[in-house]
């Protein structure tokens, strides 16, 4: 069991420079200005630990890289495939799903969709052709342009290496609401799970917490994952999962530690106030195993040195069934497989590092004929 190659569901490749995006844009979007891909709000301190957003190993060191459409001196951390591949190999990872972050919520719907198309074409033309490691891709779509998002899903529906849809955690409406329904219908029809991940860049997102803008990065880092729950509760309450039994959703930033207490509260209220949502057929927590997964991370959960506590918590929170592994590379907080819940036994860890993701993406992989791991 322990020798099975790890399936990494959250690697975040970046373009070589801020300007590489122009290689993949068409008129009129090629003529527009594109901000830095780095998150503007609440930056990670760079002069004190952890010394910036990115792993030291992921920072380019003079690499010059040519693609079919351009040559660039790599500047952005996480942009050099060979570095990523080296890190992943070193950690026993056999297959990695790429989930690029883009440029924030772009106010203009068409430009937002053009950026998604550019990143999808770039993934397919570069990283997905890299045969040093088994890379799979994510179709990034713009939820603020549902028609454009559906067209983009259809454009990639038969690509054998595209295995999920990527959308930002940031949104102007919770994702269960009807504005987005046709996107999820298209994803379910193509057997593509939805990955929801906090975005980079500079955009028109709302504040990241229930109490507005944090003042520090540590506060932001502690709280931003909790946004997952608003989307999760919305998918359930709006009846999306009753309509689309095939829909699969993964929260790629984590946030799993807050799931059990918030679901208990939703379960508690459902028998009392379900009058308002008669289409929700099951107790809210009954939707979890079929429809949701969470990428495990090292910034949450019980202390690693208390194995008895870790085991009991995992049993009570259903962690062994609901967590999947994702390194988060090239973020500073990237988690090596060995760091994920070391208190669990080998079979349980194998579920999280390999088996759960294998099942989760299995329908899509079978549909396209690709094989992972």
């Amino acid at each position: 069991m322990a020798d099975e190659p790890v399936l990494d569901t959250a690697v975040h490749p970046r373009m070589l420079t801020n300007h590489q995006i122009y290689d993949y844009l068409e008129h009129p979007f090629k003529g527009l200005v594109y901000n830095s891909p780095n998150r503007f709000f609440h930056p990670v301190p760079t002069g004190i630990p952890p010394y910036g957003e990115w792993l030291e190993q992921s920072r380019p060191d003079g690499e010059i890289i040519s693609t079919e459409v351009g040559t660039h001196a790599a500047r952005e951390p996480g942009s050099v495939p060979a570095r990523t591949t080296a890190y992943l190999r070193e950690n026993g990872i056999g297959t990695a799903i790429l989930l690029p972050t883009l440029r924030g919520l772009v106010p203009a719907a068409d430009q937002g969709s053009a950026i998604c198309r550019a990143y999808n074409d770039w993934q397919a033309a570069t990283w997905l052709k890299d045969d040093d490691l088994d890379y799979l891709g994510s179709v990034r779509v713009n939820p603020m342009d549902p028609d454009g998002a559906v067209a983009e899903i259809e454009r990639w529906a038969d690509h054998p290496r595209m295995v999920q849809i990527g959308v930002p955690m940031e949104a102007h409406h919770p994702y269960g609401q009807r504005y987005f329904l046709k996107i999820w219908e298209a994803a379910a029809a193509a057997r593509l799970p939805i990955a929801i991940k906090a975005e980079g860049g500079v955009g028109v997102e709302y504040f990241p917490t229930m109490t507005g803008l944090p003042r520090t990065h540590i506060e932001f880092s502690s709280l931003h994952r909790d946004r997952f729950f608003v989307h999760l509760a919305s998918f359930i309450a709006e009846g999306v999962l009753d309509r689309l039994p095939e829909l699969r959703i993964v929260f790629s930033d984590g946030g799993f530690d807050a799931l059990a207490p918030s679901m208990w509260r939703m379960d508690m209220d459902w028998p009392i106030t379900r009058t308002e949502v008669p289409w929700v057929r099951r107790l809210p927590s009954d939707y979890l195993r079929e429809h949701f997964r969470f990428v495990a991370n090292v910034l949450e959960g019980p202390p690693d040195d208390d194995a008895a506590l870790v085991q009991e918590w995992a049993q009570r929170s259903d962690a062994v069934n609901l967590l999947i592994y994702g390194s988060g590379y090239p973020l500073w907080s990237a988690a090596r497989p060995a760091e994920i819940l070391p208190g669990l036994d080998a079979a349980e860890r194998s579920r999280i590092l390999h088996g759960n993701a294998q099942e989760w993406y299995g329908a899509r992989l079978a549909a396209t004929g690709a094989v992972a791991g």
Partner: protein
Amino acid sequence: MAQREHEDGWSIVSTSEQQATVPVRVVDCDVHPVPKTLDEFVEHYPEPFRSRYFSRYKEDVPLSFLLYTPHSNTGGNQGMGGPGGYAAPPNGGGGGSDPDFLAQQLCVDNGTDYCIMNPLNFRPRHWDPEWDVAHCSAVNNWLAANWLEGNANRHGRFFGAILVTSLDGEAAARELERWAGHPAFVQSYLIADSHVAFGNPRFEPLLKATSRHNLPLATHLYRHAGIRSMTPVGFPSYHVETLPNWIFTYISHVTSLVFEGVFERYPNLKFVGVEGGCEWVAPLMWRLDRQWERLGAEVPRVKRRPSEIIREHLRFATQPLCEPRGPKDLARYMEWGAAAETMVFSSDYPHYDYDPAAWVAQQLPAEWRDRVMAQNALETYGLPAERPRDHLDDMKAPNFRIEAGVRRDSALAAIRAGTSASTNEKPWIESVD
């Protein structure tokens, strides 16, 4: 039911008729009084706002509303009122409007020794700090005159929260100063939907004044209209998603207070999160410790592990207590969250999801039950652990749970017989059975 209430020796009947004082067994940290009439309230409203808005056509100016409303399955437009209107006073008025009936239901029927009153009914005036300051004064004036002083509180069981504005820290501190030293006001009190985390420098004057008077700072969500109900990703549609979303408001306030170093500056300060849940305290302690280990260099003012700070300074009221399906899930999560130090009982009387004291006590392990039901609150508020006997001790406690069962059976029988329309009482289902 009567048998279950006496399991493990825990009972709401705790008094011996011979004693002059009574040990405190139950402190309810969340009770919501309301006025009987609009006039009862507006007579306490400061000028010029009273004349400007609450003289002619005063009913046209909404003070309260229901948004993200608990449309309960008991039918009818009951709003926040509980199943069957359990808290409606027999002599009229809304649930929570009659001090003597409230005392009978909580202090006699539920064996509650002290009630901490957090008024909720009047929504803040968010668009004008000056008006909001006057509004808070009105609420405090009304609470003091109608609940905390005089005949209503002749037994001394009622304590109150000093409502302060979330829009202006200096003004909030001034309102606190107006009441500090009043024997029945025991905490300062901010709305949770403040849209600014409490560790933000805006609140520093209030935190300083609260600490100077050795009071805790409490918060309670308000179900806001407008932008303050928005989550980081937009407005949810339904109550069933909004209710659990609110725990993240409290998680954000706690995180801000911890990482802003508030408790390093005010070592005597306690913070009480009311109606925000207590089941998430353990995961939050673990999470903040992990964040601090890796990112603590950014906040050198935070000298201790966040979990230690939370154990010492943060308190969480129990209602609405969750009922997870796994055996002992609730007790274990509470225990991991240091419930014996951090959690305090609350009922949320008179609202629809009210948690009776005896029911909550039944959910807690004997080892730390008394700490959650009373001791933690006594220490947090500095209240006496013994109180004088009063007339409420001599009133006979009906077995309200058996009565509730009888009423429900007869209501269900009436539905089956098709005669329910002929009775005045609505069919009802108890939420805690």
